[in-house]
């Protein structure tokens, strides 16, 4: 089994805190990307805030990649301090090459056990000889050479990054890169990246969290309220800087109870509004989300999922907030749940989420996760799409204004403060058409119907899911796991196994007719997700008719699923 279809190489830089391996990874991604390749970079660090061990894990490819590969081809260790803790995150094999300096400590057990071929890179000696060379720059040069990239590929990236540190730093860095390249032989790596094909679109380097911010602004968001939390903070930080540029604003809140209610206020006042958080913060927001449902105030709430329950593992990915996103509100509280499937898809899905919120005057939850949120990817510029929030606004109001009118479309025109004659009180109590509190069964049921129907009537179109292939075996998956699944079935196809993939981007409301069509002719279903409790599987059972023959692969975080895991599930299925 070979990764031939993807033509990618995978490598990791390892080192202790301060060794600068993360920047090395970023520089390499930028370099490869500027030279026409695509790629993905994720980071792993120890529990320390600063100064602990760190790893930059990269995959470079001739086409976009949304997940890591099954094995690393190259490991470059600036030192081995506490590297053992990355053992599970870093699958290695006999075809892996490790570049390291024997003077920087013994090769850790997991590297040796994998049968990795160790090649010496005399970092200590080189920096002793050239005190202005930094070991991570030497490592970068060595990696470029081993991968077969010209060391000059990194020049622009280095100039860009160290521009404000002065010419001397740039010169020293370039020299170190050259030194590193010259210290190793090319051709040691069995895998090799073919020259990139030219792409018609501009190439971007972006993280999933930045992509969510950009998509939201494209969709019309102009107000955000923020309470920081790992791994969602970068969305808020991106919005803080960029909303101001487009005439919007971000306010830091005292807690998540405040942030959710601030965006309800901002949206009531007329601005498409967003907040971003992770599981613990979402827990504190569910009361506010229910209020937005009842008062029909559009908002977008992003949850970048991390390991749970409770504080869990803040820096690692999991898909275990599905339940709370789908069902976490008290009472019958219709809302929308969407989930992007890759860094690139974060742009589209966040834009679409904003559009949906505004179109239906409803809260939309967007479920991203730590894996794609904090990954940096080199991608094609995401296409411009027409989804821009267009709220039904009441303008020239004559007669009694009925905010929650039952005469006409279920999405009713909203008066914005300042509009004469449109004064009404938005309310979380059961209410009449005018918004006046009412405990009458008739009002209660009519407004429950209105809120449910506006969602069920809406045509969500083809974006509801990614559909791929047409085999009798289907995989149902969602979110960032989709990337690995698509690669896994590509591998299986080389074995002649034809597998269909259905990955809903729209989780709520369920789309039973579309799903039935997508599942037509499926004999065996494999549900693949990253939660301990098989939350996605239970959700599918609750809302869809599934084939009789279902297998569930529910693997808790924090380790990501890889294409080979999927491939093994598919071939095991066949063998069984």
């Amino acid at each position: 089994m070979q990764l031939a279809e993807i033509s990618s190489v995978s490598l990791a830089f390892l080192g202790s805190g301060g060794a600068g391996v993360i920047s090395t990874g970023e520089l390499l991604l930028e370099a490869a990307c500027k030279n026409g390749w695509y790629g993905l970079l994720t980071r792993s660090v120890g529990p320390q805030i600063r100064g602990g061990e760190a790893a930059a894990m990269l995959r470079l490819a001739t086409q976009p990649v949304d997940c890591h590969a099954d094995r690393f081809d190259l490991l470059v260790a600036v030192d081995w301090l506490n590297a053992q803790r990355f053992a599970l995150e870093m699958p290695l094999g006999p075809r892996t090459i490790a570049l390291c300096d024997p003077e920087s400590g013994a090769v850790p057990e997991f590297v040796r056990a994998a049968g990795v071929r160790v090649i010496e890179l005399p970092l200590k000696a080189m920096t002793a000889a050239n005190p202005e060379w930094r070991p991570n720059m030497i490592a970068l040069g060595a990696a470029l050479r081993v991968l077969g990239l010209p060391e000059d590929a990194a020049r622009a990236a280095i100039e860009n990054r160290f521009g404000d540190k002065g010419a001397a730093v740039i010169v020293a860095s370039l020299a170190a890169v050259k030194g590193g390249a010259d210290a190793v032989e090319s051709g040691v790596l069995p895998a090799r990246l073919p020259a990139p094909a030219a792409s018609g679109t501009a190439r971007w380097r972006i993280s999933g969290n930045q992509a969510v911010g950009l998509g939201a602004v494209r969709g019309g968001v102009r107000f955000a309220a923020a309470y920081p939390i790992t791994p969602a903070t970068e969305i808020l930080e991106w919005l803080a800087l960029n909303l101001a540029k487009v005439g919007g604003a971000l306010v830091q809140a005292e807690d998540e109870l405040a942030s959710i209610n601030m965006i309800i206020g901002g949206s009531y006042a007329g601005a498409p509004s967003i907040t971003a958080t992770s599981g613990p913060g979402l827990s504190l927001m569910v009361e506010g989300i229910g209020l937005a449902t009842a008062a029909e105030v559009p908002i977008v709430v992003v949850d970048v999922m991390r390991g749970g329950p409770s504080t869990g593992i803040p820096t690692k990915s999991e898909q275990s907030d599905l339940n709370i996103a789908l069902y976490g509100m008290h009472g019958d509280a219709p809302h929308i749940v969407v989930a992007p499937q890759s860094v690139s898809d974060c742009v589209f899905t966040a834009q679409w989420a904003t559009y949906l919120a505004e179109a239906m005057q409803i809260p939309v939850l967007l479920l991203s996760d730590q894996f794609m949120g904090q990954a940096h990817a080199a991608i094609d510029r995401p296409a411009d799409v027409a989804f821009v929030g267009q709220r039904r606004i009441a303008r020239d109001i004559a007669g009694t204004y009925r905010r929650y009118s039952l005469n006409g479309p279920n999405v009713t025109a909203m008066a914005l403060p300042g509009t004469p004659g449109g004064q009404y009180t938005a309310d979380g109590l059961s209410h009449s058409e005018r918004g006046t509190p009412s405990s009458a069964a008739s009002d209660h049921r009519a407004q429950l119907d209105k809120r449910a129907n506006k969602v069920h009537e809406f045509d969500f179109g083809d974006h509801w899911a990614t559909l791929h292939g047409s085999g009798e075996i289907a995989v149902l998956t969602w979110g960032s796991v989709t990337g690995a699944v698509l690669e896994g079935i590509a591998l299986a196809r080389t074995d002649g196994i034809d597998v269909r993939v259905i990955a809903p981007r729209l989780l709520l409301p369920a789309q039973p007719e579309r799903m039935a069509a997508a599942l037509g002719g499926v004999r065996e279903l494999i549900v693949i997700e990253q939660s301990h409790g098989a939350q996605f599987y239970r959700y599918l059972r609750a809302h869809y008719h599934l084939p009789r023959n279902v297998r569930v692969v529910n693997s808790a975080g924090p380790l990501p699923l890889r294409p080979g895991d999927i491939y093994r599930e598919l071939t095991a299925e066949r063998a069984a």
Partner: protein
Amino acid sequence: MSAEPKPAYKASDFKSDIAPIWCPGCGDYHVLLSITRALAQLGKPPEQVAIVSGIGCSSRIPAYTNCYGFHGVHGRALPIATGLKVIRPDQTVIVTTGDGDGYSIGGNHFLHACRRNLDLTMIVMDNHIYGMTKGQPSPTTEPDLDTALTPGGTGLRPFNPLVIALASGANFVARAFAGNIGQTTSIIVDAVTHPGFSFVEILSPCVTFRPDQRSWKTQVHPAPVDATDDPARAARRIMTDDGFNLGVLYRGNRQPYTPKFGGSGCDLSELEREFEL
């Protein structure tokens, strides 16, 4: 069109057609009246005023006015008002809340709204009780009030919201009594006019669960000295007064907070530059 000297609005222009569900004699009727009178005096049309509340008898106020309103969830009126005011600085935004909604569950937002100092007015109808849920102690309840939830009393010292407001940075602090409609009206006008975060505590009797508060009307009296602009002095005065001093007690001069908006804004494509390689 023509500049008229006489007021453009009457209090009734700010009253909605919805009948309040309050108990007969509740202090909140007077507060509603004072608010509508103050709004008439302020002279902005009803659609340029927004009133935001949480949950409680006192929090029922927005729908009884003819302004824009938001009757949110318990304790969260201030954050909603914050979002509203940030996006629509042109609106007059008033928060109407109670001692439970504003000081117990909403205490954190109270602290931080004072500190944030947006140009908002917070009116608390303090009746030292949870009226709506039928008589449990609030943070301002006396320690010996016997209730079903706290038989024999809470044993806790009531807290002093005016001092908390001052300590947290409110820019205007006043105390009023619901029954004194004239004074309350003028304090509200003053509070709304004063820049930054204005805090008005109104003693508003709950005739149903605190019939003893009927005596408040004999206990209240005007503050013996004028408002100060020294928060330390104001705090000291309030910490040592009898709790029935009425009037404006502090009038600060901190600049109100105005969030940084980027004006009309650049083209979206400019945001994309950082991603391009």
